[in-house]
């Protein structure tokens, strides 16, 4: 084994540092960096077919994309899906955390109930909800019937399908985000609340002026995760709708999966993946800038 008796030996530091990093680096390059670059490369070629190797086509795949209504619909759906899930799940997460952070009857049960959906596989969750949305028979229709409404094909209608998926995702994610808020709430010094109580500040005032600003880093962290998840997680689409009806519930990654593994048009799938990569990269840059600003203001 390599021994570093004298840490002052700097060559040793270089060699040993890289040796330790090497195994992880090889895998990271192979399955993250290389495929990122290869996606760009392959998006500029045609899809190889039997007897016809890939040829350079320049931006043709991107032109096809710009003219593809399903791509635009998937992108639009994804933005709507993000706008539907992110604020709702974050607000609920914060509310849940505030509720179970205080003294309250049955706190242990409530935490459990909020958090449990996080542990379940999305695929299992999707199966359960698929059952709920079953027209005429499922839980949702049974409840609406109590209010005298007629049966509705929730997942089969273009108007309701995306909202149904938003509900499932919010149910699954709110408890997960709650954990981060809970952790942050517990790190806020109780002295602050005591001081505010002495000053006679109301609880809402205290929340608005003290708690919420102190939670900002957590909110940012959760926001970034929520945005990534809304573009990364499509398991429930595969189970519940397969993107239908009429692509009304197709999200970007689901469309990539469809194009790449059902039509085997890998070059076009690569061009679509580039859009997703650009979105994720913008999130990363946005996070970086926001973090930067927060530090300056402090």
């Amino acid at each position, binding site marked *: 084994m390599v021994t570093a008796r004298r840490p002052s030996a700097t060559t040793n530091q270089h060699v040993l*540092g890289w040796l330790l*990093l090497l195994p992880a680096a090889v895998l990271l390059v192979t399955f993250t960096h290389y*495929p990122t670059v290869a996606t760009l490369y392959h998006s500029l070629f045609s899809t190889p077919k039997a007897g016809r190797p890939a040829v350079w086509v320049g931006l043709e795949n991107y032109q096809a994309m710009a003219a593809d209504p399903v791509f635009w619909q998937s992108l639009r759906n994804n933005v709507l899906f993000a706008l539907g899930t992110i604020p709702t799940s974050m607000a609920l997460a914060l509310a849940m955390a505030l509720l179970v952070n205080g003294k309250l009857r049955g706190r242990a049960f409530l935490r459990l109930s909020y958090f449990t959906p996080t542990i*379940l*596989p999305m695929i299992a969750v999707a199966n359960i909800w698929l059952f709920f949305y079953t027209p005429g028979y499922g839980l949702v229709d049974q409840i609406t019937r109590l209010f005298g409404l007629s049966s509705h094909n929730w997942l089969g209608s273009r108007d309701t399908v995306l909202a149904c998926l938003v509900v499932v995702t919010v*149910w699954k994610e709110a408890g997960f985000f709650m954990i981060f808020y809970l952790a942050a709430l517990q790190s806020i010094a109780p002295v602050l609340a005591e001081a505010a109580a002495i000053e006679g500040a109301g609880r809402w005032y205290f929340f608005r002026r003290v708690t919420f600003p102190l939670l900002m880093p957590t909110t940012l962290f959760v926001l970034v995760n929520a945005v990534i998840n809304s573009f990364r997680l499509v398991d429930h689409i595969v189970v519940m709708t397969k993107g239908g009806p009429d692509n009304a519930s197709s999200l970007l990654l689901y469309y990539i999966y469809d194009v790449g593994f059902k039509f085997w048009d890998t070059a076009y799938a*690569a061009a679509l*993946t580039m859009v997703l990569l650009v979105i994720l990269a913008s999130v990363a840059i946005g996070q970086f800038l926001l973090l930067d600003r927060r530090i300056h203001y402090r």
Partner: protein
Amino acid sequence: MTRASETLAAWLLGLLWILPLAYAGWTAFHPREYSARFVLAAPLTLQNFVEAWNAAPFARYFLNTFLLVTLVLAAQLVLCTLAAYAFARFEFAGRSAAFLLVLVQLMIMPDVLIVENYRTMSRLGALDTVLAIGLPYMASAFGIFLLRQTFKTVPKELDEAARVEGAGALETLWKVYVPLARPVYIAYALVSVSYHWNNFLWPLIVTNSVTSRPVTVGLQVFSSTDQGVDWSIITAATLLTSGPLLVAFLLFQRQFVQSFMRAGIR
């Protein structure tokens, strides 16, 4: 808002949140005729679970999932420990650049690089194996980051003391750093196991036979075959696949929640 109304709101939300799971439990543990009818006198049964278990090779799927999560976790622990140690305590050329390149994976996860990673797996001849499902996740940027932060908090004096006693770099890592980072390892392990137990899209793409399919994909294959929708059996199968994780969670709730908290604070 008064305390009483807060408690009420918390309970309403809590009941609403547990309702889907409770309903699935009702359907799975009762005979078919009661699957959507709530009668207190309805008899309990395990028949749905038996039928689900016999209708698909779930035993094999469980074995595959078990192999998958073990393999991924073992590789992650070793690879991330070594890399985190390098980043935390070694001054090597290109360290900051290399670290930035590692962090790229936090944003661009293997989950979205399905097309190219499939191409790579097919070139490696690894398609339809448990290894292919796990490989892209083994070098985890999240794990490296988490452990690097932890290792950085280890006092340098402890490190130096070990060196003075003649311990090499790896020995120091094993005897000083790893024991001190134990809670972080546990946290990371729980997060990793639940992530890979639940992962679906990538395993769906790279597997196409019983010998490599994890339970999530197995469940999908089972419930999407068009032999008439029998919700009692499907919900039973659904609870079956999430069962082990759910039971583990109920038993070790505290550790789970604390682990997710710890893993989130960076």
